[in-house]
């Protein structure tokens, strides 16, 4: 990338309000996750019954929960969980989905028909219901819920990729490449994929946010991350029974989920503006 091009890219990033706010929030959560690997202000795994339901103080900025665990520390450690879920679930969807979408666009014919009908078909099953069924088969647990969410991401990416890839396959430069004797695989890798990458990246941010929401919902139902690992959905589940006496216990983890999803959605919007100016101008 030339110097001027990179400068204009950075200035476009700085100009997009969504990108700056979304990126800051996402960065902040990443820092929380990394810091919590080494240090948290209080205990996360130790049960200290005498310290239960402490009100916020200098020692416990957000107070403690029913087991005397530090709420702020649990929220910080929960960030690791949500980020892991997002990364793994989106990666499953990306690799399988983008692969299938590219294959459908390159092969056409019955391959495309089969892949598209299968993905249409999978949309007949509502996401959360499929995830519940998959975790029922695999058994509840963090890893299994990630797999369930990841599987559901596959058709989303397959559809998007195939749609955008088809548009690229119709371009003149692809025809020129075909005429010069390049095979479909190298055309896909050299021309199609780079040109649809920005759309895929934007969708990946949105799916990341959706994965965090889905994992929180599954953990809330008791099908996702199991104790003692802190997870925002799980914290919300535990807080619900205490809602009448200690409502703030239910407020914090939900706010953390909302903040993460808000940040990622803004980041996605910002990236769309930056990577695909044509799309943003249309809005």
């Amino acid at each position, binding site marked *: 990338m030339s110097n001027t091009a990179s400068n204009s890219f950075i200035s476009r990033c700085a100009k997009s309000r969504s990108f700056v706010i979304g990126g800051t929030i996402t960065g902040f959560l990443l820092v929380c996750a990394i810091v919590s690997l080494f240090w948290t202000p209080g205990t996360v795994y130790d049960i200290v019954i005498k310290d239960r339901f402490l009100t916020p103080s200098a020692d416990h900025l957000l107070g403690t929960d029913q087991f005397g665990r530090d709420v702020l520390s649990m929220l910080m450690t929960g960030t690791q969980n949500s980020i892991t879920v997002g990364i793994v679930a989106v990666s499953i969807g990306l690799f399988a989905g983008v692969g299938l979408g590219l294959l459908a666009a390159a092969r056409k014919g019955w391959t495309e028909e089969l892949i598209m009908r299968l993905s249409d078909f999978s949309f*007949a099953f509502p996401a*959360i*219901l499929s995830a*519940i*069924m998959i975790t029922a088969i695999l058994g509840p647990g963090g890893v299994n819920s990630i797999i369930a969410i990841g599987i559901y991401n596959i058709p989303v990416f397959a559809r998007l990729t195939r749609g955008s890839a088809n548009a690229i396959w119709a371009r003149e430069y692809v025809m020129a490449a075909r005429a010069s004797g390049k095979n479909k695989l190298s055309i896909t890798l050299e021309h199609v994929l780079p040109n649809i990458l920005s759309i895929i990246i934007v969708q990946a941010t949105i799916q990341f946010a959706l994965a965090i929401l889905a994992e*929180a919902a599954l953990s809330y*139902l008791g099908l996702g991350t199991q104790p003692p690992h802190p997870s925002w959905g799980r914290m*919300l589940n535990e807080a619900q029974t205490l*809602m009448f006496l200690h409502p703030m216990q239910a407020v914090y983890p*939900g706010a953390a989920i909302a903040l993460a999803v808000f940040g990622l959605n803004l980041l996605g919007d910002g990236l769309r503006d930056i990577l695909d100016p044509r799309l943003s101008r249309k809005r």
Partner: protein
Amino acid sequence: MSVFFAKRFLTLLATLVGASVVIFTVMEILPGDPALVILGVDASEDAIQALTKELGLDKSAVERYFGWIFGLLQGELGNSYAYKVPVWELVEGALKITVPLAIMSMILSVTLALVIGLYAAANHNKTSDITLMGFSQLGISVPNFWLAVLLIIFFAVNLRWLPPGGFPGWEAGFWACFKALLLPAIALATVQGAILARITRSSVLEVYREDYVRTARAKGLSRRATLWLHVLRNAMIPVLTVMGLQFANLLAGTVVIENVFHLPGLGSTVLKAINNRDTIVVENVVLMLAGMVVVTNFVVDLLYAVIDPRLKAHDL
């Protein structure tokens, strides 16, 4: 046109058949033996075998699949393994909660979305537009089950205006039921409404830029008349598509929301049935949900043709 309907209808049937096979297979793979779950781990081998036979689970999978499907075609859903009552009895009670809930939240979310979306579009790039879109961005980010908990804390625990959960049953009267479903409906509708409002706004803005809108304004049609006569109808296509998809999400979303409010609807029925290994209930309810999704999409496709007659000529 009729060719399109016939093709679309065949796809619908094929999807339903496919869905039934997938659901049945999933239930076959699902670990856990219904007879063992009902009798408990201490049950004798003989008792388990007897119950397996009584439930008809000793037959081959193919036999049971066709038994299920032929039963369905005759309107016979079979009996719940766990409760020994016809599945329809369980489902009927649940539907009477989930369907009104889904309809209530749909009405709420569409009203919210159209009002906010149109207002924001009319005030494009003004402070009110930017503020509303900021709020809708927040609305999209909030997990609906958390919003549900917040609503309970605020309206049920603090203000005591509405019940925190549970369902009195339709015998208790419309008003009591309406009150019981109001908070869950708001929790479901806010997120959906926020998404729909954004779609409405951008769709309306896009149509405003069309030549025919400029022509209408140029020939002296008022802004309001242009909106109602030209813009709204054309802007409705993407809104309708998303609404169709959302209805599916809404039905599935009730699984979590019903859990928060302790409503014995379709979602809690499925969840309980999965835990009880009451596979026959799961199969029927999940197929029913998938069926509603497929039929909704079918209806949306038909509505396209009604809203936009130009689409009739082409194969959709």
